[in-house]
């Protein structure tokens, strides 16, 4: 066991001496860990929000009776269920949208008498029970909600519910830790009457055993099912799995760059202190002691970096929560995540990860340190020359890894053996590792090619720079890989985003063909599940300007045990009224026979193709449909089935619509039509009415917001790569104080020394960006063709954003170039006489 005194003398003193270098490594680790933990917190909170939503208000119930299509059902069944199981709780729920603060809330109508324990007031005067029951619009809100939006008892809030605007009066504040944070409670009777849902329930929560659940299952009509809450939760979790893994994976790459930084710092300590280590060994220190000392150095940096990372993670968590909330709400269904604080568990995970990362990063340099012999001299390039003999095996191993990465990604593309693109992620890691191993060889080739021309152009500084780089090829390879990984990440993400945007634009052209789109204003997702009032549909149809109305209805259906979105449209109307010049040529032939189109996601996930037959559970029993076509859907990440609405009438007994696509007669002024429609509806309905152009713009805006988190990741990547180059050059300055002093003695100016460092940064920058570009394109192909396909099934046509990439690459290059300036400042502080006369 080494003494604390030795650690203090040998390690802490060194950390103090190399403050700036240590700080850079700490920041690098902190950024990686922070990003990772921020994304993790956001995904965890999204899952917690799902769980809270499914668990509902009665947290101890373990079964749920619900409609197989996700719609409200007739409440008669409740009495029959109650006869079998007394512990059953009827619930009618809907999402409300507070447009003033742009937040969604979940309004729950419950049997407050039966669930009295749920409605405990927060304080004696927090609750006006009489008002709550007598006033139809009375609601109870949680203390969390009250605090969050500064709403108090007696306040009246305006809320969009279904397709209307309602006033809700706060009758009391509830003090419950088990209730979901965004929960609002109404008496179920008041709910039914106030929102015109008399006779309906959304679900029935039950506390039952297996036998009772079987008994209940027997009495349920075909449109209802009884499910275990755990199963529902699992199903819902799968929706965010892909999203979560993708973000988590990208943040993992940021950690990888952090590892490079820390590796570099510990390695520099070892190289710089070779003589001291030799003396220490001479005094009797064993190899284990030396290894432990440098591991401790790594762990100290890792510990401080992780602690700072937790703080960074808190900020990242806040923004990630917003991004995740927005994406899930748009793609799946509205969720509200109010909790974004890092818990003790998260902090411990961050710390554990940080320490693990620092152990990995410091392992190799610590091992190198232990190999230093007691009589080690100050001979330059000891480690570098040792690695030189490894260059060929490294190149071979690197190429093998890159090839393996490509092969496993192809395997994932072909067979997708897991629910998420695990093999493709592995493939990308293999590729990064492979490029890392070949980077010293690559850099040596670049130096060999550029040495002469650079010598001619930059004279002395060129010769010294190239000599230094050649003599420290492994060190510079680490900096090069920091830049390469960051550029690769940026290039891959930009290519993905650009390709996606391009594909989305052509999808919009194909699919957004009607003149006006209408949906309830309370619906903030791509798909709405609450129907529009019949009066709205009749009113729209009654306008003389209207040529046709495509009534669109969405339901949740089960396919192979997983919930997917089913859309029912009026194919005949689409066919008849899609105007020339607008490409509405989809769903060809869907109106004939029992046919459906399925999204590419389902096709990939279940290996379904045109001509296959799928069975869908309907209230009339299982019905078989033939797959007519597969299509790309950017609207949901959980799979989408599209069919003609005649099947909605026939098998689901529904003829309502959740969204309307309105086709206007030739020559009608869309703006004036919308104005007229709004006037006719005003005061009675709260609808979102958009013309074709606005909807297209909105789709693009949603897309941009969804990808906002990736822009943040790109920014962090640039920052980390800057730190990587800075770290290496600074280390070089610290290690090369003697050489810099010699140059000064020979008459080299500070400007020439600055030129040397900026030139080093420039070479690292260019070489890193070139390698990163190759790696980035390879990764972008895997992102688009494998990860996207398995995760979301989106059809993305590969498109390279040359202009954007040129700009970003230029910024990255200038950034790395600027990384040479700070070390130049540090170099200027060197007193040449100290390092020359010292001897």
């Amino acid at each position, binding site marked *: 066991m080494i003494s604390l005194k030795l650690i203090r003398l040998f390690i802490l003193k060194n950390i103090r001496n190399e403050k700036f270098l240590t700080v850079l490594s700490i920041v690098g680790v902190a950024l990686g860990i922070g990003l990772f933990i921020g994304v993790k917190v956001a995904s965890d909170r999204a899952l917690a929000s799902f769980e809270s939503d499914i668990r509902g208000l009665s947290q101890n119930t373990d079964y749920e009776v619900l409609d197989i299509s996700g719609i409200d059902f007739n409440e008669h069944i409740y009495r029959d269920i109650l006869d079998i199981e007394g512990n059953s709780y009827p619930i009618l729920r809907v999402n409300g949208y507070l447009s003033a603060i742009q937040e969604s809330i979940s309004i729950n109508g419950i049997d407050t008498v039966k669930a009295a324990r749920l409605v405990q007031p927060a304080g004696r005067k927090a609750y006006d029970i009489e008002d709550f029951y007598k006033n139809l619009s009375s609601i109870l809100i949680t203390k969390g909600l009250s605090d969050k939006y500064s709403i108090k008892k007696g306040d009246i809030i305006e809320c969009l519910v279904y397709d209307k605007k309602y006033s809700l009066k706060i009758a009391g504040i509830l003090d419950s830790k088990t209730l979901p944070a965004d929960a609002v409670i109404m008496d179920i009777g008041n709910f039914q009457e106030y929102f015109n849902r008399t006779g309906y329930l959304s679900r029935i929560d039950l506390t039952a055993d297996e036998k009772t659940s079987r008994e209940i299952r027997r009495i349920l009509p075909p449109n209802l099912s009884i499910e275990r809450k755990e199963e529902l939760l699992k199903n819902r979790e799968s929706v965010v799995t892909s999203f979560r893994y993708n973000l988590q994976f990208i943040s993992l790459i940021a950690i990888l760059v952090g590892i490079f930084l820390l590796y570099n710092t510990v390695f520099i300590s070892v190289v710089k202190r070779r003589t001291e280590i030799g003396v220490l060994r001479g005094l009797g220190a064993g190899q284990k002691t030396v290894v432990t000392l440098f591991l401790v150095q790594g762990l100290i940096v890792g510990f401080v970096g992780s602690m700072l990372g937790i703080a960074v993670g808190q900020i990242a968590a806040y923004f990630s929560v917003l991004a995740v909330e927005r994406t899930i709400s748009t793609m799946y269904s509205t969720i509200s995540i109010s909790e974004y604080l890092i818990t003790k568990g998260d902090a411990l995970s961050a710390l554990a990860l940080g320490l693990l990362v620092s152990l990995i990063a410091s392992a190799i340099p610590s091992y190198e340190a232990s190999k230093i012999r007691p009589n080690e001299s100050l*001979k*330059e*390039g000891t480690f570098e020359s040792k690695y030189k003999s490894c260059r060929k095996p490294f190149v071979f191993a690197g190429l093998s890894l890159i090839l393996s990465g490509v092969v496993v990604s192809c395997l994932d593309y072909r067979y997708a053996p897991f629910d998420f693109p695990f093999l493709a992620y592995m493939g990308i890691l293999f590729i990064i590792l492979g490029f890392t191993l070949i980077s010293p060889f690559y850099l040596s080739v670049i130096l060999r090619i550029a040495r002469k021309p650079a010598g001619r152009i930059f*004279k*002395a500084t060129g*010769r*010294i720079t190239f*000599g*230094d*780089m*050649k*003599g*420290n090829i492994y060190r510079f390879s680490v900096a090069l890989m920091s830049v390469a990984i960051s550029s690769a990440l940026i290039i891959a993400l930009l290519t993905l985003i650009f390709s996606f945007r391009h594909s989305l634009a052509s999808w919009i052209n194909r699919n957004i063909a009607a003149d006006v789109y209408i949906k309830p204003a309370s619906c903030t997702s791509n798909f709405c599940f609450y129907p529009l009032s019949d009066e709205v549909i009749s009113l729209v149809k009654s306008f003389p300007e209207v040529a046709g109305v495509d009534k669109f209805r969405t339901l949740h259906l089960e396919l192979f045990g997983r919930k997917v979105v089913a859309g029912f449209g009026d194919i005949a109307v689409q066919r008849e009224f899609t105007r020339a010049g607008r490409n509405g040529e989809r769903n060809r032939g869907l109106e004939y026979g029992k046919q459906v189109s399925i999204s590419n996601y389902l096709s990939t996930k279940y290996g379904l193709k045109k001509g296959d037959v799928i069975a869908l559970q309907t209230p009339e029993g299982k019905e078989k449909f033939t797959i007519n076509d597969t299509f790309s859907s950017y609207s949901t990440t959980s799979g989408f089935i599209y069919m003609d609405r005649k099947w909605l009438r026939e098998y689901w007994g529904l003829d309502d619509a959740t969204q309307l696509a309105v086709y206007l007669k030739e020559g009608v002024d869309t703006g004036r039509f919308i104005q007229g429609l709004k006037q006719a509806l005003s005061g009675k309905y709260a609808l979102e009415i958009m013309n074709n152009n606005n909807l297209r713009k909105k789709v693009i805006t949603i897309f941009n917001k969804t990808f906002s988190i990736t822009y943040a990741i790109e920014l962090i990547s640039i920052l980390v790569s800057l730190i990587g180059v800075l770290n290496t050059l600074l280390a070089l300055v610290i290690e090369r104080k*003697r*050489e810099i*002093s*010699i*140059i*000064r*003695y*020979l*008459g*080299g*100016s*500070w400007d*020439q020394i600055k030129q040397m460092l900026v030139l080093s940064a420039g070479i690292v920058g260019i070489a890193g960006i070139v390698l990163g570009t190759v790696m980035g394109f390879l990764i972008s192909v895997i992102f688009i063709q494998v990860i996207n396909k398995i995760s979301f099934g989106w059809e993305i046509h590969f498109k390279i954003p040359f202009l954007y990439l040129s700009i970003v690459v230029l910024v990255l290059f200038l950034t790395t170039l600027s990384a040479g300036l700070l070390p130049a400042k540090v170099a200027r502080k060197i007193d*040449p*006489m100290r390092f*020359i*006369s010292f*001897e």
Partner: protein
Amino acid sequence: MIKLIDVHKYYGDTHVLKGINLDVEKGDFISITGSSGSGKSTLLNLIGGMDRPDRGSILVAGEDISSYKDEQLTLYRRERIGFIFQFFNLLPNITVFENVQMPLLLNSLEEEDRVSEYIKRVGLAGKEASYPYQLSGGEQQRVAVARALIHDPEIILADEPIGSLDSRTGIIIMDLIKQLAEETHKAVILVTHEHYLSNYAKREIKIKDGVLLQ
């Protein structure tokens, strides 16, 4: 050519050089001997333009370099000074050829033939592509000598040039310095604590506690 007038230098409270007066002519070979800490290296650094005196003047070809700005001192070293150090101080990551060529390159000159010629003159022909770590101590000091002379400086400043060499190699190196300096009419200021090296010098100056004892 070089004239030091009442030069004083302090490092903190320590008075390192106490009123140094010295004249060095073209072609002079002066040895400055003294014990460790006597101020030899400080004196060399002042003449070499690495440092400025706190008091007094250093005139080189009539110009007072003690009033030079940093850029002017850099240029002065680059063009007029050749340094030879005890531990050679070669740049480790460039070849022998490039090390010798360095002062020329810093002066924006290439003159590869001249570099080859000097390498040959110091007896290292064939070692041009070698790196410093591939050479013996004596060979490294030969490179340092060639580097000190390649750009045709007026003054050679040698700080314990054979301090890390065995006596036989030391003699060879000293012979080489003397021969090349004479051939090229350079002023050489040699700092050493080895009194026998004074035999190479035309003048021997002793320094003790920052005072010259001529």
